[in-house]
């Protein structure tokens, strides 16, 4: 199995990397195109998931079939990313709610009060 050649039923690292790439691009497009602040938050979640797919896939294919504590770095980091994503979502939603209470909208085009 070398690169993209080989039979289609042999799933290699590059398949996971391509999926991660696609999810990253979708997340970036979401961030750029949504004007709803919560939609932008969803784009960030997509990007974090794409990074997690890459981390776990690299961990799996770099140390196949081994399960010792020092070789699980990818999975550990993925766990930390999930925790940070949850924390980030909580703080971001608190900010959005506060903003909505004050201005009755969460359209990012209208959120210009913090502009210098």
């Amino acid at each position: 199995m070398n690169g993209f050649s080989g039979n289609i039923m042999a799933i290699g690292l590059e398949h996971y990397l391509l999926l991660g790439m696609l999810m990253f691009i979708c997340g970036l497009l979401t961030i750029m195109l949504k004007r709803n602040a919560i939609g932008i938050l969803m784009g960030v979640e997509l990007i974090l998931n794409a990074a997690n797919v890459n981390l776990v896939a690299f961990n799996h294919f770099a140390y196949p079939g081994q399960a010792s504590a020092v070789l699980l770095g990818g999975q550990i980091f993925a766990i930390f990313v999930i925790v940070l994503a949850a924390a980030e979502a909580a703080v971001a939603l608190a900010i959005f709610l506060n903003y909505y209470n004050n201005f009755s909208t969460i359209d990012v085009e209208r959120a210009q009060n913090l502009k210098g």
Partner: protein
Amino acid sequence: MFSEQNIAAVLFYVFAIIAAASALGVVISRNIVHTAVALLGALLGVAGLYFLLQAEFLAAVQLIVYAGGTLILIIFGVMLTSKSPFSRFEPKRIEVVAASGVAVVLAATLGLSIHRVAGKLAAVNIPTSRIYPIDQLGLALLGDYLVPFEIVSVLLLVVMIGAAYLAKGRRR
């Protein structure tokens, strides 16, 4: 025909298509509730991929924390902020063009990088008998990764206090 490798490949394609189609749905859908449902599909697809990558604990965490916690939080946010008088969130045409340009450039760059790195790590056959690594995960979290673990717990405390303070707002 139905070897272990073939079943794993079919499952990979099923979960990958679920994740990719849902990610596209997040970009395309205009309704914010539809976007949230599409995001749920993407999270579920990625959880399935974690199972295929033998990260069973991570898949469970993904389902519980992401699909069960974070997404519910986001949907609550949608419900609490949806009665806006300016609820039309259409992007401008120039924004769509610029975003598409950035996406194409990024896709070309990442695709090239992946093409270069592909084959450096060959496809491996999934070993059939393996010790479930959750004990090793626990040892790693409380051993080599003890400092980040403790920092994350402090961060969660700070986030809890900060979010409660922020969401309370100024009541007049």
